[in-house]
């Protein structure tokens, strides 16, 4: 299962932009792998300084055995963007049966524009990104209208 010495371990976290601090959840997660969390926090805060403070930002940290690390920052979670667009704090507790809020197709398009800047989504059609966002909305109980 695990490869030999050259493998890096990957750590995925969602960190509020500009507010990475050594305390949990980041601190122990990085500390266990021998990385100084302060280093990561400084670099992360630096890279996310253009984002609005506390935007949840998924980050994938690759940690090499010699304790150096690199990390890639991604776009905010789709469900968070949808809830913001719909102006709600929480999704429906019973999606499908309850409707927690609604968004227009134009909101979906704007969210897709944010998402398409994410390197993982850069090669995917806008059309398909929109469809995937609509599915996420469905599972959050957010109705999509024209």
């Amino acid at each position: 299962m695990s490869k030999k010495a050259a493998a890096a371990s990957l750590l995925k976290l969602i960190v509020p932009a500009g507010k990475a601090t050594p305390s949990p959840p980041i601190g122990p997660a990085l500390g266990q792998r021998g990385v100084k969390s302060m280093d990561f926090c400084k670099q992360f805060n630096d890279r996310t300084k253009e984002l609005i403070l506390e935007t949840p930002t998924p980050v994938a940290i690759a940690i090499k055995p010699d304790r150096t690390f690199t990390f890639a920052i991604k776009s905010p979670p789709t469900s968070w963007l949808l809830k913001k667009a719909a102006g709600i704090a929480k999704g429906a507790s019973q999606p499908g049966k309850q409707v927690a809020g609604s968004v227009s197709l134009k909101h979906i398009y704007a969210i897709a524009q944010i998402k398409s800047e994410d390197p993982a989504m850069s090669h995917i059609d806008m059309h398909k990104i929109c469809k995937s966002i609509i599915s996420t909305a469905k599972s959050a109980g957010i109705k999509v209208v024209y």
Partner: protein
Amino acid sequence: MYTRLLFANSSARYVRAGCQTYKGTRGIASSLILRTAEKSAEPANEAQPTQRKYPASSAVHGTVLKGLNIYKAGKDPVALKDEEYPDWLWTLLDEVPVEKMTERERQRHERSKHIKESNFMKSRK
């Protein structure tokens, strides 16, 4: 009655609106949206009545799409006119009726129905 009024006036704007309410299976809600959209939509843009078979967007041109800006230096995006969005956008909410699905889509649909039913049966214990 509203529909007749629309058809009576022959300007391009009303023809477009007429097409929409005629098609409108969404009834009152769509004509209400239409009325508000009409008041703020600019007449110069209702150029292609045959293209639009979908209701006017509830996010009227100029609406600020709040909450969708993630950059400090940026501003919330503003809704553009319906025509400025790609055509496929309005088709996203369409549901293809079973008869019109391609073979592949139909198989997928059957399979997912089957899975949902079996999940339901299992959870009934």
